[in-house]
Every structure is written in C-alpha cells, then in structure tokens.
C-alpha cells in the first residue's frame, strides 16, 4: 500500500507565515492560561491526600460529602466520581504525619455508614516532599532541554539546535495550555508525559532536520525554502505513518488503559499531534527565520573537506618521506 508517493515538493514554506501566526496565537493563549489560571496541581506537587473508594453499589456521593464534613480535617475536601458511578475519589489538602492511624483510616471510620466499600488507594504527600518533587521536576526538564541543545548543536549547527528547542518550547507550552483547559490534574505522571513529549517531538524534528541537512548537500537549488520543501515532502510519509501508529497506540492506552493513566495518555495524545505539526510547520521555517544561509553552510562544509584533504595530503607526503 502506498499513501504518499513523492511527485513534487509541497509548498510547505509558502504557508509557514500563516501557521507561524497560528502557533504564536496558540502559544500566547497557553501562556495566558499558565499565568492567569495556572496548573491544577495534584497532591504530588501540592501535598495533601487522595483516597479512592470503590462501593459495592452506586456510590452515595452526597452522603459521603455530608459525613466527611463532620470532621474538620476534611474541610474543603473534594469528592468526585472516578471512572464509574461505583468509585469515588476524595481529595483533601491536608495530610497527616502519624504513621499509625492516618487520614485514610479516619475516612474508613467516618464513612462506615455509607455502605460497603473497599479502600483501593490512599496517597498522601507531605508539603516538604511536594515542593521537593516540584523542584526535581523542573530540574529534570531544564537538564533534558540542555542536553538536547548541546547534542543537536554538535551534530547539526547552532540554528538547528535553537530551532528545535524553540519548537520544543512551543510544544510544551501548547500541551500545558491543553492540560489547563481540560482540567487535567498535574501529578508526577503528567510531568513524565511532558518529558516524553519532549523526546517524541524532538525525535520528529530531528528526522526532518536530518533530511534537510542531507538536502543542503544534495539538492542543487541554493534557496533554503525550496530545499526544506523538498526534504519535508520526502519525509512526509514517514512523519505521518509513525505519528499515526504512535497515536493509535496511545489512543488504546487512553481508552482502555484505566482511569489512573488517563491524564498521562491525554497529554501524550495532544503532544503527538502538536509535535508532528511543529516539526513541519514551526521547526523547519524557524531555520529560515533564524537566517540560516545555505551558501555559508556549504562553504563551511567545503572548507572542512578541504582541510581534511590537505591533512591527508600532508600525511601521505609524510609517509612517503617527502617531508
């Protein structure tokens, strides 16, 4: 089966202005959401307690709220259904230091009259650990980006590195915006999803860049936008196919993987779409916008080649005993 047969370059760069404006708008909107609405941090980062209960019958959510209110520790506690009518999740900002009898045990005795239930999960994170995890998370993100920046600079050129990182910032921003917009609670797994998205989106960008790098060497036309168009068109089949397989795999995870990893797979779903889009429409034109010059790059490469040849010539002369 063939869905994409290369005939002639698609004029991607001709549309890049429009997509650039679209992206700029989306990124600014996302930043607005981040600064004005902010993330809804889960207990991993904010500290607190999460208790998941499964009832034998339909969970009596009003009754649960009422019975919990009897205890001051649960003031402002949030009770919601979780996945089905049988399961509820109780989120509370407080946590207890006591090892023996803790908040989970208290809930068990407070709700003793609400029907038969099974305590399926109790997560409790103290405030100190919460801020520690947040610090570590941001650190991880910064380090990952730094590492990538260095690697791409070495393997390609600094404008490629800058363009790929800018695309990453674009992807992470929009994914974060989606997270806030859809009310996904931010816990450690979301951080992991965002870091995975970093890797995935970069993967995509690098494969396109690799083709552009190749195109600079092989395509006669010295105009960068033409080179990019041809290279992107040639990788289009791969980009779409891989994104589709990964997308469907993550979609199965989202639909059937269980309630607990829903937030994780949602973030990845958004990430795959954004990452694929940005490698074509953002990262590639950024090379043009950053003023990458084909002639300069070719000259540099040629000089490199010349230096190497000169070296080899000298060595040959040395070995033959001419010098």
């Amino acid at each position, binding site marked *: *089966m*063939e*869905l994409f047969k290369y005939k002639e370059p698609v004029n991607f760069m001709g549309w890049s202005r429009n997509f650039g404006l679209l992206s700029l708008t989306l990124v600014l909107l996302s930043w607005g959401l981040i600064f004005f609405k902010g993330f809804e941090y889960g207990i991993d980062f904010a500290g607190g307690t999460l208790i998941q209960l*499964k009832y034998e019958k339909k969970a009596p959510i009003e009754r649960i709220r009422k019975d919990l209110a009897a205890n001051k520790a649960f003031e402002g506690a949030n009770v919601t259904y979780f996945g089905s009518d049988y399961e509820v999740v109780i989120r509370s900002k407080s946590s*207890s230091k*006591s*090892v*023996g*009898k*803790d908040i*989970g*045990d208290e809930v068990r005795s407070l709700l003793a009259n609400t029907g038969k239930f099974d*305590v*399926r*999960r*109790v*997560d*409790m*994170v*103290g405030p*100190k*650990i919460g801020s520690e995890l947040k610090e570590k*998370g941001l*650190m*991880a993100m910064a*380090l990952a980006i730094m590492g*990538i920046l260095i*690697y*791409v600079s070495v393997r390609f050129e600094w404008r490629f590195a800058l363009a790929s990182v800018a695309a990453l910032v674009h992807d992470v921003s929009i994914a974060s915006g989606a997270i806030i917009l859809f009310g996904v609670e931010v816990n*450690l*797994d979301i*951080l*992991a999803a965002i*870091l*995975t998205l*970093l890797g*995935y989106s*970069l*993967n995509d960008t*690098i*494969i396109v860049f*690799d083709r552009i790098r*190749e195109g600079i060497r092989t395509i006669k036309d010295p105009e960068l936008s033409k080179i990019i168009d041809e290279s992107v068109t040639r*990788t289009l089949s791969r980009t779409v*196919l*891989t994104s589709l*397989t*990964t997308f*469907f*795999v*993550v979609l*199965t*995870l989202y*639909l*059937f*993987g*269980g309630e*607990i*990893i829903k937030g994780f*797979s949602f973030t990845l779903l958004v990430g795959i779409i954004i990452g694929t889009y940005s490698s074509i429409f953002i990262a590639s034109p950024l090379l043009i916008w950053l003023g990458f010059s084909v002639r300069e790059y070719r000259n540099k490469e040629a000089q490199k080649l010349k230096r190497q040849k000169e070296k080899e010539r000298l060595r040959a002369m040395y070995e033959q005993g001419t010098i």
Partner: protein
Amino acid sequence: MLNRLNYRVVIFIFAIIFGVVFSIPSLTQSERGKKITLGLDLQGGLHMLLGVKTDEAIKSRIKSIAGTVKYLLDDNDIVTDDLRIEGDRISFKILDEDDLPKVRELLSKELEGASVEEAGESFIITLTPEEIKRTKTLAITQAVDTIRNRLDQFGLAEPTVAKQGTDKILVEVPGIKSAEDEQRIRELIARAAHLQMMAVDEDRAARVYTMSPAEAKKYGDVILPDVKDEKRKYLLKQIPILDGSMLTDAKVGFDRNNQPVINFKLNGEGATIFGDFSGKSVGKRMAIVLDDKVYSAPVIRERIGGGSGQISGNFTINEANDVAIALRSGALLAPVFVMEKRSVGPSLGADSIKASMFALVLGFVLVVAFMVLYYGLSGVVSDVALVANLFLILAVMSLFGATLTLPGMAGIVLTVGMAVDANVIINERIRELLREGVSVAKAVEEGYKNAFTAIWDANITTLISAVVLYAYGTGPIKGFALTMSIGILASMLTAILGTHGIYQMLLPKITKEKLNLWFGIKI
C-alpha cells in the same frame, strides 16, 4: 539460504534466544530464575517515605545517660541532691565535698560522648557535638534496622526498608490484603516500643491529681496516665530504673484469667539493676511503662532476682503479638513520621494490570497489522523485530530484577509505537530508492545507510530525556524511564541490525517482479 547467513542475522538470533530464555521466568512466574517484580501499584501494597524526629533521640540519649549517672552515684553511695534533666543537660549537686574526686573519676571513666562541667559542688553534663551527630545518625540507621526487623518478624513477604538520602527511610510492603491489615502494619512500624521501669514517687504520690506537670518536673518527677483509664495518673521519678535496651526477649503468654500478657527477660546488667532496686525498695511501687503509658504499678514485696517481668494490660491477642514483636526488635530511638505514603489495594492493582495489558495487546495488534498491510513482507520483517524487542525488554528487566510499574507498562506500550519508527524510516528510504530504479540489493544497502543517521540522532535525543527522567524521577516514573530506555536500546539491535540481516539473507528471493509483495509498492 543458509550460505547467506551473515553476522547480523547471527547476532539477531542470539538476541532472540537471549530474550526468550531470560523472559521465560517472568512470563511463567516460575519459582526459579531471575524475574521482574511487579511494582506496588500493580500488585498492591504500601509505600512510605518516613522522616525521623532525631531531636527525640537526643532527648532519650540524655535520659539514658542520666539513668547511668544515677545508678553510678547510688551504687557508690554518693549522696546527691537535685539530679535532674533540664532541656539538653543533666545537672546535680553532691552533698559531701570529699566525694568530688570519686565523682570525677566515675564520670570520666563511665560516661562516653558526654562533656562534664563543674561549678563548686554542682556538675553539669551535656552531650558533645560529635555525640549529638552520632546519635542522630544512629537514630536513623537504628530505625531502619528496627523497622526491618519488625516487618520480618511479622511474617510479611519481602518488605523493603532502606535509608534514602540522609534523613529519610523508605518502607515498601507488598501484598497487603486489606485496609485493616495495613493499619496494623503501620502501627507496628510506628510503635516506639519504649519500655521503662519507673519508681513511683511515694512521698508525693498522694498529690498527683492536683499537681501540674511543671510542678512535677521541679521534683524531678513526671506524671503519666494509666493505659486502661486515661484519667488515672501516676507520679513517677523522671529518671527510669532501667529501660527496654536491657531486654533480651519478649513473648506472648497468658495470665491466670487467660488474658494475653507479655513476658520479658532482662540481660545480666538489667537483672542486676532490677534486683538491686527491688531489694532497696520493698514496700514501694514500681511502674511498668510502655510508650509513656503505665501498664501496671505493683508493690514490691521482696527482692526480685532472675530478671524477668510481665506486662499486663487489656491487650487483644493481635496487639500483644505486635507489642512483643516490637519489644524484641528493640525500641525506636526516635519517633518516625510520614512524609509520603502511597498505598494501593490488591484489587486496584489487578485492575491496573488487566487494563494496561489489554491496551498493550491491542496497541501491539494494531501496529503489527498496520505494518503488514502497508509494507507487505517487509512489514512482517519489522514485526519480527518488534516481537524480539518486547522479549528483549522483558529479558533485560528480568536480569536486573527490575520493577514493572504502571507507568512502566505505559513505557512499553509507547515503545511498541516508537520502535517501528525505525523500520518505517528504513522502509520508506528503500521504497524511494526502488522508485528511482536502482537494484534491490543496492536499495536495501543504501536505504539502511541513508536512514541510519536520522534513526541514530533521534534515538539518542530520546534517550537523553529518558536518562534525565530516570535520574530525577521517583518511584513509578523511574519505571517508565527504565522501560523506555531499554526499549530504545533494544530497538537499535532488533529494528536496525536484525532486519538488515534478514534482508541480506533473503535478498536472492526479492526480485523486481515481487516488489509489491515484499515492499508494498508497484513500480
């Protein structure tokens, strides 16, 4: 065909054999061989990060030094006044100046880690800075050992207790059946199990109900409640006669009324102190105090030798059992508190396994079917590599005894999606070359060559973020980073090297006429 066997195929076959052999123990859950352990989120269990209140350890160290000092002075018939603990110091006065050299000698010989100051007839004892540091470290390592001991004696399967960082303790207990059991285990972990025998201050005991704690302190006393009835109070000498550190054994027994009690035995030193004290205090009461609650305060009728005693209270049999375990494995030098706790019930773990397995199988089938549909036989070749990749991930994880968590499962699912990426890139490159009209052999060789830099650079960058995730992640996140890293590395072996070898071997069979069957293209 065998004569076209090449090193790539040989390595690939070895990789498959390696993968299958070492993943068998995990897949069949056999007793023998190294296998993957399921994370607590999949099998259910309790994960806690505990902190240690090391300041309390300092306090009790001072208390125990005070006990030693008191025993030394009494033993040598030195009369003192006002022996008491104030904050982090012990102070006392001697009444007879002639005793000064003797006291000096005793203190310098018998006290370790304490510095002694003199002012006239008064002595002030404090802990040296090194001793404070040592006590704090000891409190943590001792807590780790004690908690491990308790959980082992409780008879749980493979609990983990380990020091984390400088001042935290990681406790992981798999396979807990119910919330009630979990609470019992937590109470066992947290129990201070601080056994003390304390003399009742008979001179002032009658005034206990009108006395404030501050006033009691002035007399060097402390007010403690009864275990059965919180309103009943005892006025006890603050410095204990002896404590649980001199205990050698504790067992559950039954008293005359068939109520569970705990019988304990003291070591030689403890037995001597106990004997001496009881001999001197006939007619007075001695309280048995566990975790600052008085269990009993019998009147001493005669000198008690042999060094054994009994704790009776209204124990249930489970409680008596847990207290005995806690006493045997020793007291916690300092109380512990929860910094982070995650507990998953067994039913949720089973549901998570079911759901993520289903997603994995479905995702896998989708990808495998798609590859065959789109690429024909070369899709089959990629699928072989994908299966080999999965086995390799399982094998490597088994060999390292790694833990498979729910995010780890997600990592494997994601790897399935990304591992075929390499084959997609390669196949597309081969197709491109075939369309240009080059020979099949050349298309395969050049295709792999052209695809390689892209796959390499892309994998390395993904690996960079996976490694960072592993280094900075905690618990489950580490599991995700681990499976993804192994998946990426394994895919280099299977998807690039392995498939290349297969094509090289099968090359004579791939003719220009069969390109649709082999690569799914018509030219």
